[in-house]
């Protein structure tokens, strides 16, 4: 187990290195620098600014400098928000995104698992068709359609929630649902398929022959195997949630990292964009490792390989 974790960490290092390198050189290849847009800057000030940020050095030297900083966990100063370092900006915005992501995932897991299990217990009945029909619908509705529609119905028409912001507990509801809806639907379908697969296995018959109650058959004998595919979906789901947060935070004007990233993109805030991409790459790699560990824990067969 420890070896497995160590192996993943070793694997992650070149990946991060490559991500950092590609991001850096893409930035350098960009036409126009971060100080081009501010019309007020005179050539002197611009040169001074560039010197301050080390932009006048040879590119390769800049690259080495940047990588050296990275090794110390320093993502550099933001080009756009004077006086702020990228790390500070990340630290401010990420908790909001994390909270949103957690709510969305929790919502998706809870509803998705319940719907999937219910559907799998009575396949081809209304208990199956209704949740699975809704799930199919959910999979085809992207967040940038559901988000505005939810606002239209629940915020504007019914007035139950605010249309945007992140100030009150009730502000969490619509964004979390918007972000989680697709995953709810997907998890419901995976759960149903996984449970049906397991419930048709011979060992379920053995369990019934022992006199196990239906509850016991589902809870003790099926869930573990049936949820394996859901667990392995969590990896892609996490990176999907990160992506989705870009849209959801924009729609609901939530001061999270996703919105920062989008704005940094518009503003050509190089270091900020790069820092965000790197940060998310690390985060996703770590979370994927966690998912792998859960998977191994759930499936004893993998534990020995």
């Amino acid at each position, binding site marked *: 187990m420890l070896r497995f974790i160590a192996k993943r960490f070793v*694997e992650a290092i070149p990946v991060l290195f490559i991500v950092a390198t*590609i991001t850096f050189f893409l930035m350098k290849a960009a036409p126009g620098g971060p100080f081009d847009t501010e019309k007020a800057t005179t050539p002197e000030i611009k040169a001074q600014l560039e010197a301050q940020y080390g932009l006048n050095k040879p590119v390769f030297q800049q690259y080495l400098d940047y990588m050296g900083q990275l090794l110390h966990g320093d993502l550099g100063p933001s080009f756009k928000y004077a006086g702020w370092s990228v790390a500070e900006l990340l630290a401010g915005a990420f908790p909001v995104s994390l909270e949103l992501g957690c709510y969305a995932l929790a919502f998706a897991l809870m509803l998705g698992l319940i719907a999937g299990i219910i559907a799998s217990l009575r396949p*081809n009945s209304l208990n199956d068709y209704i949740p699975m029909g809704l799930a199919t619908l959910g999979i085809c509705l*992207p967040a*940038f*359609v559901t988000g505005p529609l939810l606002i239209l119905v629940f915020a504007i028409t019914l007035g139950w929630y605010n249309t945007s912001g992140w100030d009150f507990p009730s502000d969490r509801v619509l964004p979390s649902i918007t972000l989680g809806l697709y995953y709810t639907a997907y998890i419901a379908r995976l759960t149903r398929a996984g449970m049906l697969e397991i419930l048709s296995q011979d060992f379920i018959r053995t369990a019934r022959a022992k006199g196990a109650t239906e509850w016991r058959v589902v809870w003790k004998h099926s869930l573990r195997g049936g949820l394996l595919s859901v667990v392995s979906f969590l990896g892609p789901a996490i990176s999907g949630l990160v992506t989705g947060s870009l849209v959801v935070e924009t729609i609901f004007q939530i001061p999270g990292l996703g919105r920062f990233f989008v704005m940094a*993109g518009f503003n050509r805030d190089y270091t900020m964009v790069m820092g965000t991409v790197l940060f*998310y790459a690390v985060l*996703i790699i770590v979370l994927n490792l966690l998912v792998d560990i859960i998977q191994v824990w759930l499936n004893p067969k993998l534990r020995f390989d």
Partner: protein
Amino acid sequence: MTAAPQPATLRPTDEIEAGHSLWQDAWHRLRKNKMAVLGGIFIILLTIASFVTPLVASDYYKHQNLDLGATPPSHAHWFGTDQLGRDLLARVLYGGCISLSVGIAATVVSVVIGVLYGTISGYIGGRLDVIMMRAVDILYSLPFVMFVILLMVIFGRNIILLFMAIGAVEWLDMARIVRGQVQSLKKQEFIEAALALGLRKRRIILRHMIPNVLGIVIIYSTLIVPSVMLLESFLSFLGFGVQPPMSSWGTLINEGAKSMEECPWLLIFPGLFFSASLFSLNFLGDGLRDALDVRASKD
């Protein structure tokens, strides 16, 4: 039977032996699948409407009528008009044209990358295969969309770059599927025969492998189209995709969302069309996959 997940491979022997009748069988099965047929009809109608409208009324969609302004759906304008008095139906159809074009172009890019990558990995096998597939696993987990945004930011919002970038993101599934198919093909006798005849590897890949993988590639391409369109609209919605004066469904939805309080139809119609197309494409793709899944015909 119930929807147990099935590994995505055709049985090559069946495909080779059955040849013609396999496709006929598949066609029969597909026709029985009502949702897939409805999806197919919708997509065909939409495609025709989207591509023909800009041809016959080439600039109707940008014809402004500032005096009219935003009006709800009416007899003259079935879907209403936007703030500049432009007919929404025309704009939606024009947006469909852009969305579908980008969808198809980006799909082609991703299919090319995926097929090449998967074929090489599956055909050469061994350590290279392990490394290449592990790379795919890792790429799966990276926040790829952020790279696309990065690209769009840096190199300007150019439609060619857009579908290249999207294509470069969506090839992973295809690579995996093709690799699986190539691996099972490799064990087939006729490939062994070709090897025994001393044909060069490159020739074997080009002449024997790729044609045999084609069936499954076509099926999965229909499933890539909706995810590509989704990505395109996602980017356009954020403002990183298609730029005005061009407009895709993503941009229309974005504009609609901004003014939904006063003119909800500007959000509802593009959203409806977009979701319905995703729906149809998904059903069509699933239907095709089920219809061509040789396994299913055996029980």
